[in-house]
């Protein structure tokens, strides 16, 4: 007989509730059951009004980020077996406004993602049947930072973003760094305009929890420190070349 898991889920329906409240559920689970499957079980059988984002169930689309016992995790890659005997406290992703139940408003994150010019600004044009040569080493240099699935867990983990919502945040800087390192790109100068600001890389005090919670090992904390070096070099250059700034 499958074991039972006690779950406390933070509910919030904007049209009925003034503030979030906790609803308790009891969900049967086996060795394979993921938190996402448990939430779908609740929605199909216990309370149809429970709303949450999900799609791929294989930790690649980045929809199902939420807080599990206070830790930002992907629901599809969190298994009830690891919480046997405990109560699972499920809350919406931290540091974002709650839209409804476990759905948060990610528009701040998406807007910053668009501001960082996350696209190749090419050094030289290429004909349409000719590729830029990029050795495996050149690819390997930025490849880790191109693995970000935009799930937002690092924003939920970052105390600096909690304290100052102007901070553009770990994932956006990692994406900027991914393009700044790409051998085909020449857009670093433009992206540095945003990174050089107080709310750019300079809001980061290297807590390092963003890299700890990242489900894809992108290590945004490292990207931020390396971007600080870029920004500092750019600062020095701008100060010594007259009228550059």
């Amino acid at each position, binding site marked *: 007989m499958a074991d039972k898991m006690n779950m406390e889920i933070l509910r919030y329906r904007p*049209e009925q509730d003034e503030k979030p409240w906790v609803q308790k559920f009891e969900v049967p689970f086996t060795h394979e059951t993921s938190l996402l499957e448990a939430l779908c079980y609740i929605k199909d059988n216990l309370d149809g009004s429970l709303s949450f984002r999900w799609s*791929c169930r294989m930790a690649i689309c980045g929809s199902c980020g939420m807080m599990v016992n206070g830790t930002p995790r992907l629901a599809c890659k969190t298994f009830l077996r690891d919480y046997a005997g405990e109560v699972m406290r499920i809350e919406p992703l931290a540091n974002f406004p709650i839209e409804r139940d476990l759905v948060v408003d990610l528009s701040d994150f998406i807007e910053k993602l668009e501001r960082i010019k996350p*696209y*190749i600004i090419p050094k030289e044009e290429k004909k349409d049947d000719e590729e830029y040569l990029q050795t495996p080493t050149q690819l390997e240099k930025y490849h880790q930072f191109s693995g970000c699935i935009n799930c937002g867990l690092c924003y939920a983990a970052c105390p600096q973003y909690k304290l100052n919502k102007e901070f553009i945040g770990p994932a956006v800087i990692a994406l900027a760094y991914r393009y700044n390192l790409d051998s085909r790109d020449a857009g670093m100068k433009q992206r540095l305009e945003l990174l050089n600001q107080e709310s750019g890389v300079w809001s980061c005090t290297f807590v390092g929890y963003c890299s700890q919670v990242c489900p894809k090992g992108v290590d945004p904390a490292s990207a931020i420190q390396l971007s600080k070096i870029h920004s500092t070099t750019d600062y020095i250059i701008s100060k010594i070349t007259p009228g550059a700034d």
Partner: protein
Amino acid sequence: MDIVKADVAIVGAGGAGLRAAIAVAESAPDLDVALISKVYPMRSHTVAAEGGAAGVYRDDDSLYKHFVDTVAGGDWLCEQDVVDFFVDRAPRELYQLEHWGCPWSRQPDGRINVRPFGGMKVPRTWFAADRTGFHMLHTLFQTSIKYSHIHRLDEHFALDLIVHDNQVQGVLTFDIQNGIPRLVLAKSVVIATGGSSRCYKFNTNGGIVTGDGMALAYRHGAKLRDMEFVQYHPTGLPGCGVLMTEACRGEGGVLTNKDGYRYLQDYGLGPETPLGHPKSKYMELGPRDRVSQAFWQEKKKGRTIKTPLGDVVNLDLRHLGEKYLHERLPFICELAKAYVGLDPVDAPIPVCPTVHYTMGGIETDGKTACTIKGLYAAGECASVGIHGANRLGSNSLVETVVFGHVAGDEAAKFSREVDFADQNKTEKEAEDLYAASRSIIGAKGHDENMGRIRAEMGQTMDDGVGIYRDDASIRATIAKLAELKARYKKVKVSDDSNVFNTEWLNAVELGFLLDNAYAMAYSALNRTESRGSHQRLDYPERDDKKFLAHSLATYNGDDAPTITYGSVKITKLKPAKRVYGAEGEKAEAAAKAAAEAEAAKEGK
């Protein structure tokens, strides 16, 4: 009701939708695009594709070879002129993605690397480690940010199309975040909503792959073509159905049954190729339908491995070694550890066939135009005619960009020739449609549990319209689907809120799924032959005389869809016996000899 007016509306922001939006923004910079998607673009199911995208690259490869592989793979049900166009445009689109920053895997000298893939004679599958779909989608989404004329309507659910006398005028959407309906008036609409594999219970697809666009066009008179051809991917994880990319076998992985025997050689894919040295079109590199069918036969013989999650065979990658695995298949290692608690470096992965792709879709011509004027369809939701009865691995990702580009250009051209519909009349119609769609909420006497209808639909589709089918099993599924459609009319939706009302939206999605499933089942019933992924136990042979034709399903509301048949364009490659492995090699040699003899004769 809120109204948005845009020259072109695109429903679905996956590979095809984004490429179409960029195509409009580039080819017609003065036009504006409303990119409608029920999820943020980077959540679209393109993100889960792993294997790669096929495009001729190597010197020993040719467009004709890619053409032959695709048509033979599709068991000659392909529109050969469209396949010609497709194989010619494929490389160019992949280079374009490379210019936009897609991190394709590379050879030591910096040139693109390609890898072997099922059914492909010459390696031509471009790949980005084992997350090609993810990298393609993020490249497309991030590149689309460059264009200010692309206005994204994120988390907008497409409830219905507005069609006046067979011409599309707009899309009725629901802004999920704000909980309000929004009518998008457009002069042309591109549908790029992806497949409908969620009709089946056990599948590799995301929760959003519910065939919305297919059902919408179907209900407005567009025909669904070749719906009976549903691809089973041979290697999905049991239970959760997560995909183990075909690239595992492309890189040398092997499939063994409970005795450790590489059983594929018994099913026309032999002889056994040496471990770790895969040979194109042999053994594990056979096309997906053949490899899945071999599993079914092994299971019938009781030679598969029993597990609490069902029958499996072993996908063994151990001989590839840790470094190679972590370089070429890092995501597979991560998934195997997370979902079945095994490290592919030291243990074989249990796999079994899972529903993966819908070959069929909205009938379109070679330029993605549907029978409804102003409506275009691209990607998995469309049946543009290149996959036929079985899609070859890595032909789909490149299809999204090739035909996304075409759909964008065509939609832009069309929108210049027509004008917007009358706003007030259309708005009135949209309000009625919205009210009708909301009427199922809290309706009296509605007490059918949605989850149970969905589960039973999936189960009956798995049972009756699976890898092998016969008349009785399909009819049983059709009867069950009819009962489910009736029960669906009484589906219980208790949540009457507006903001993020996912229960109501799931009910609407279930409606789409049931319509698509109905079309799939009836198309399968009428095709009394075995071709590609549609294998009939009662009609095991391919019947080119009667069934070298596309099936076309026309919507009849709750009644059975009428199934008619459309001709198949054959240009260069005459239908022949579809063979792989050594037999395939012999047949190819014979065909080449015949072609040379013919050429010599003409030469005299």
